[in-house]
């Protein structure tokens, strides 16, 4: 699906996968265990990043070539369990059970063996040919933990390979072990639970005679006992009495323990995980006898400090934005100069239709290049470094309470920061939120974040011709608007909200392969969605221009632009153009007004109002498309409408208020 960023997951037939593979294997494991690094080590550069068919969950796939065999490697999402808490968990378990990969490699973190084994146990229940890769053994050693991988293999009954993926250690052993596994297809042994659980699993298995599912019978029985809604639905469609009987058995367990059955099962699994971990881990107390504070603890003393922590957040995000725009402006100027050698860089209205269209497409392309390469790319690159280092989770924690005021939680800061680059990948990244309501709400707020294109407008109109303080005031106002809009939308939107529950990984030096991959994953949607929209949209708009619809459109919009917003009638068309490309507002304005010194034709109030309206009124067409692919057309258009109305109302009020003391 790599060629179809715009219709993520809408057409499974277009899905492109690695062809002619001899085997297929899947990587599974918790988040933050080095799974992506392992994946990159195994597959090198041959990677396809796309979506799971029909799901808004990212899917990465790569090719491992070893000893003449072509092995397709699927990187499953990083998850902690096989419940139905998130789409990622559902996608992963369905993939393993229904697609029958030739092997599953479970990457686990040597420093957090218990929690990782908890997931391993659930993988074993699904009974694929399984291999465990104990990663980051070097970090565990530093913490004084030695893992006996041989013993772990004996206890689990599956092969275990120690690795330090980031340095490529153990990868060749891992590859050998994978080859053995896909060849032999061993079924992992069954780990047994306590008697009262096993008895009931047995009872359910015996009832399932007539029920056929693609899943292992024991796994189905366990999931029925856990009251898994999805499995209950599958089995219920064949034989409701089995589900009812299982429900009775679950109730018995709940009376016995006084806790929900899913919690009892988690405790059972942790009991096994704890027992195994205790047997394979040797804890060595630090040599000098004192417990030295780890680097993470020391950094966190500042990063999570009630005062310095906030300073650090402001410094990091502010620095990121500042760096992007200082560096970006330079490169952008350079690139624009470079492209101007090749042809007309400004909209034209003369000549034949085809040459006008071609010119439009060209200006769209140039605009895309001069925005994405200098601004968005460096921004996402640095952000990926911040993210992979582990600091982004600290920002989430520090801002969690603030985000509560918007009806969200700390994690939502990630899409919002991304939005300062480009709203499109930011909308896709709202997937990290747990509930549908929080996904939609954060996407709505993302569209209010001034992206690079809108920043160009604010800087080009206000900072250049009024002063920098008014430009900053617009930014401040935008944050205020996001807060107000968030609070209102939170009240209006139906659905549930889930509070923050997030792992805080240790800091580490970012892996360049993970950083590059993350940057690419985010920039990719720009190339497949924003670029075409820029090119086609610019061509179409020039055609409108050429056809002489300029004045009729300006006249039609005059009641709003002239009477209500106090702007010259000519900006009507620039606002329409802005739907395609926000930064085009400035370009067309320059052409139409015949000058680049806007101060001579627009008053400061008009400049501010125009920038304000441009900032709010609509996410560009690419964002509308992105929203539609993630949430459907109805919601996408509703958000658009709300923002157009809000921008108009706010713009009009701003015009009147500002005129009072700037007029």
């Amino acid at each position: 699906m790599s060629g179809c960023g715009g219709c993520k997951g809408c057409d499974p037939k277009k899905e492109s996968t690695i062809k002619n593979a001899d085997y297929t294997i899947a990587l599974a494991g918790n988040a933050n265990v080095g799974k992506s690094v392992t994946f990159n080590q195994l597959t090198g550069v041959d990677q396809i990043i796309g979506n799971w068919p029909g799901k808004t969950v990212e899917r990465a796939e790569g090719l491992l070539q070893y000893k003449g065999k072509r092995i397709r490697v699927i990187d499953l999402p990083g998850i902690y369990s096989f419940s139905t808490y998130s789409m990622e968990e559902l996608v992963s378990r369905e993939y393993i059970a229904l697609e029958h990969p030739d092997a599953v490699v479970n990457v686990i973190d040597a420093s957090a063996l218990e929690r990782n084994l908890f997931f391993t146990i659930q993988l074993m229940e699904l009974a694929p040919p399984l291999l465990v890769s104990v990663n980051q053994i070097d970090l565990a050693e530093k913490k004084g933990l030695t893992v006996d991988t041989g013993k772990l293999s004996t206890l689990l009954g599956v092969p275990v390979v120690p690795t330090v993926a980031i340095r490529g250690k153990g990868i060749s052993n891992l590859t050998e072990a994978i080859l053995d596994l896909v060849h032999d297809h061993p079924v992992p042994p069954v780990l047994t639970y306590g008697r009262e659980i096993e008895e009931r699993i047995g009872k359910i298995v015996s009832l399932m005679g007539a029920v056929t599912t693609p899943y292992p019978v024991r796994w189905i029985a366990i999931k029925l006992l856990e009251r898994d809604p999805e499995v209950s639905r599958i089995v219920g469609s064949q034989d409701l009495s089995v589900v009812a009987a299982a429900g009775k058995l679950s109730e018995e367990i709940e009376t016995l323990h006084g806790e929900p059955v899913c919690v009892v099962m988690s405790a059972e699994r942790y009991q096994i995980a704890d027992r195994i971990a205790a047997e394979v881990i040797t804890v060595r107390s630090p040599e000098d006898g004192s417990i030295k504070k780890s680097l993470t603890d020391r950094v966190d003393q500042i990063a999570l400090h009630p005062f310095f922590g906030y300073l650090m957040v402001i410094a990091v995000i502010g620095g990121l934005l500042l760096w992007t725009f200082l560096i970006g402006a330079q490169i952008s100027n350079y690139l624009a100069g470079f492209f101007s050698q090749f042809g007309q860089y400004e909209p034209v209205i003369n000549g034949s239709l085809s040459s006008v269209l071609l010119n439009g497409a060209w200006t769209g392309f140039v605009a895309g290049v001069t925005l994405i390469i200098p601004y968005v790319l460096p921004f996402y690159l640095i952000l990926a470094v911040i993210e992979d280092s582990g600091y982004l989770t600290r920002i989430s924690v520090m801002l969690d309470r603030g985000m509560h005021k918007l009806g969200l939680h700390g994690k939502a800061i990630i899409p919002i920061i991304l939005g300062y680059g480009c709203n499109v990948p930011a909308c896709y990244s709202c997937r990290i939120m747990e509930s549908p309501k929080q996904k939609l709400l954060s996407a709505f707020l993302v569209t209010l974040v001034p992206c690079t294109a809108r920043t160009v407008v604010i800087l080009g109109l206000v900072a250049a011709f009024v002063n920098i303080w008014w430009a900053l005031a617009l930014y401040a106002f935008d944050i205020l608007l996001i807060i107000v809009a968030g609070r209102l939308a939170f009240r209006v939107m139906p659905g549930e909200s889930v509070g923050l529950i997030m792992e805080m990984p240790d800091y580490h030096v970012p892996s360049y392969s993970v950083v590059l991959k993350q940057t690419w994953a985010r920039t990719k949607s720009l190339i497949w969605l924003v670029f075409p929209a820029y090119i086609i949209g610019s061509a179409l708009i020039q055609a409108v221009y050429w056809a002489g619809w300029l004045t009729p459109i300006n006249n039609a919009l005059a009641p709003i632009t002239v009477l209500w917003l106090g702007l010259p009638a000519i900006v009507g068309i620039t606002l329409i153009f802005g739907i395609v490309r926000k930064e085009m507002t400035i370009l067309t304005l320059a052409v139409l007004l015949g000058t680049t010194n806007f101060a001579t034709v627009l008053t400061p109030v008009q400049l501010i109002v125009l920038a304000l309206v441009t900032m709010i009124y609509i996410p560009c067409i690419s964002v509308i498309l992105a929203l539609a692919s993630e949430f459907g057309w109805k919601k996408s258009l509703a958000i658009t409408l709300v923002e157009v109305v809000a921008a108009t109302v706010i713009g009009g009020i701003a015009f009147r208020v500002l005129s009072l003391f700037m007029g």
Partner: protein
Amino acid sequence: MAQEQVEEYLEAIYDIAGTDGAAKTTAIAKCLKVAPASVTEALQSLAEKNLVNYEPYKGASLTDDGKKIAETIKRRHRLLEVFLADVLHINRTKVHDEACRMEHTISEDTENALCRMLNAPSRCPHGSPISPCSKGIGSCSECDAATGSAVPFLSDLRTSDIIPITDLGAQEKGTIAFIRGDCKVVQRLSDLGLTLGTTVSVTRKAPMNGPVEVFVRRTKLAIDHKIAENIFVNAVKGGTP
């Protein structure tokens, strides 16, 4: 109306109005599982007794007198829940209904004795706060002094305090006693390693009720303050394992 019925109504209005301002007839009917018509009748009679302010179609709110009664009943209810759950070890899912029946019959003396015996607990087993008593005293020790010290067997009985994890001091340890809340959230927490009996500690609390950083099974989790308030632990006293 029987006193018990009066109290049930006041309690229901207290609960509903606590979140919405005024309690609508239909909401009360739903809460008490009675017909809306009988609710209207009951509200009129309560209004006559000057316990509620009742406006047809708008709903009912408690008067100061009504609120006083409702709070007393709530306090008794939650104290009884703690007693049933912690002392008699009755299944937590059952203590609510049991306490519902008992709350109307105990006297103020019993209420205060319960409070002393349970070391003036701050929350019921489901996590709701227990309001302080209405006696005009400064602290619980005054109460103990006035009634001749705390019940002696109490300290033996409560070898540990069950407290929300948010009340755990920095570097203090506790073992998970129980977790309340939405089933999905509870499952998520137990999937991440917060299972019953697990030793946990709080590494850091973000200011102003921000997320709580919990250390469990060699990993650190940031947990929303509201969710963390519903994770109850047996505090392990410093030094002893």
